[in-house]
């Protein structure tokens, strides 16, 4: 799909740390929209091998704050044309997205979200149980009697996509425009002088650069330590699993905050499922039986007939969580060091808009207007952007 450059050159206009969807998208839009092509993308593993290839691929914009809705809505718009843009099939599939409410308070939050969404032009509404039964006749709406479904937030543009192809599409597009993608290249130090970035050290050699974009999800605190910065980010594993392929039966995406489940059926017929974060800090991608058991039992509350379905794979990614469930993006106190982080459990859907806004921010050395509510200094100013109520499950 792309070239494998032999060695690093001694200098680049921009260095991007992290060859996941976000880093590659930023490289792509820097080259395509801003004419900056002298870029090295540095990836310690392989392209899309981190959280880009570990998420459950759900795309939606039914958030809670006006800033969040505007941002994610722009992303959904970009997603819809991306296959054409890349000339690559992303298997982008608009399914409709139901967030189930099992309690009065959940129903109230859904109503709030629906009204915020509608006000901002996002297709989102509160629906009754019978609408869910029509779209998903296989669901036990009583959940075995102990957590009956009282309604749902329905988000028609909710979609899924093939996550690997997103990394490949952005990577290939960037590569064709002259960006160098260096896999198996780990950043081991960042050089600054007088509060300004001057270069970085990798295990394959040193490079000089005046602009660094850091897009490394669970490794963000380690990169920040290299430039002497602290942040509110904490690292927790987020696990997921997938069943054996089966005939298509589940068209919409189903989410239940109370049962800690989100599930969709892929084009291959597998059910991709996720749940809450692991309950304590851990810098590891290990999986646990506790997680598989808990998620399976909640899946059976919704879909009892799956009791004979087999789980094929289970995995984890390292989620960089923030206190307000919004990302940390934009310029930092270190000049020339740009951050695209704090993407916790909600980063995949934002890949295109992150590439767009971060490429603008890096090229112009000015935060894009869409990310104004996501800057690092919002914490010191006590101006948080609370999106916890729009997280798919209670974490």
């Amino acid at each position, binding site marked *: 799909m792309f070239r494998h450059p032999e060695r690093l050159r001694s200098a680049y206009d921009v260095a991007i740390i992290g060859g996941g969807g976000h880093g590659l998208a930023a490289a792509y839009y820097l080259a395509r929209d801003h004419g900056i092509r002298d870029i090295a993308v540095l990836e310690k593993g392989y392209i899309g091998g981190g959280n880009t290839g570990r998420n459950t691929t759900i795309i939606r914009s039914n958030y809670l704050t006006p800033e969040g809705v505007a941002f994610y809505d722009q992303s959904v718009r970009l997603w819809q044309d991306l296959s054409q843009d890349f000339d690559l099939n992303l298997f982008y599939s608009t399914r409709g997205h139901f967030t189930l409410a099992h309690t009065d308070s959940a129903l109230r939050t859904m109503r709030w979200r629906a009204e915020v969404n509608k006000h901002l032009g996002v297709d989102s509404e509160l629906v009754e149980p019978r609408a869910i039964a029509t779209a998903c006749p296989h669901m036990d709406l009583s959940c075995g009697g102990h957590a009956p479904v009282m309604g749902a937030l329905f988000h028609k543009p909710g979609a899924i996509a093939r996550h690997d192809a997103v990394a490949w599409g952005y990577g290939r597009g960037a590569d064709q425009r002259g960006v160098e993608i260096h896999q198996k290249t780990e950043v081991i130090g960042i050089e600054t002088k007088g509060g300004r970035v001057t270069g970085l050290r990798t295990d394959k050699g040193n490079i000089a650069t005046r602009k660094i974009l850091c897009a490394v999800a669970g490794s963000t605190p*380690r990169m920040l330590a290299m430039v002497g910065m602290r942040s*509110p980010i*904490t*690292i927790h594993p987020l696990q997921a699993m997938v069943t054996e392929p089966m005939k298509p039966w589940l068209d919409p995406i189903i989410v239940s905050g109370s049962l800690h489940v989100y599930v969709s059926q892929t084009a291959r017929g597998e059910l991709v499922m996720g749940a809450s974060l692991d*309950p304590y*800090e*851990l*810098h590891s991608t290990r999986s646990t039986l506790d997680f598989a058991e808990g998620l399976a039992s909640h899946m059976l509350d919704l879909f009892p007939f799956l009791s004979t379905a087999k789980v094929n794979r289970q995995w984890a990614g390292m989620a960089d969580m923030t206190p307000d469930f919004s990302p940390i993006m934009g310029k930092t106190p270190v000049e020339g060091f740009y951050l695209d982080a704090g993407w916790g459990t909600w980063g995949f859907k934002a890949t295109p808009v992150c590439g767009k806004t971060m490429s603008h921010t890096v090229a112009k050395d000015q935060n894009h207007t869409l990310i104004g509510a996501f800057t690092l200094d919002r*914490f*010191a100013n006590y101006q948080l952007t609370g999106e916890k109520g729009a997280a798919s499950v209670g974490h």
Partner: protein
Amino acid sequence: MKLLPCPINGPRPVSEFAYGGEYREVPDPATQSDAQWADYVFNRTSLPGVKKEWWYHIPSGTWFIAERDVQADRIERAYLHSEE
């Protein structure tokens, strides 16, 4: 990590415990600048390595300190706060 050594009850399944976050000294609010106070309120270390943490054994209501390797997920020591 499947078992956690409670200083009162001995090794118990991890499902009996709640995580209380990184152990941090509370700075004196009267002498802190706004920036220092915001740093205390929001910022965390979040680096791999051995870290002092608060843990809570739910059935017996015991808060205690555990020194845990947050990359290997291994407890090095666990003790009551008063035994520090």
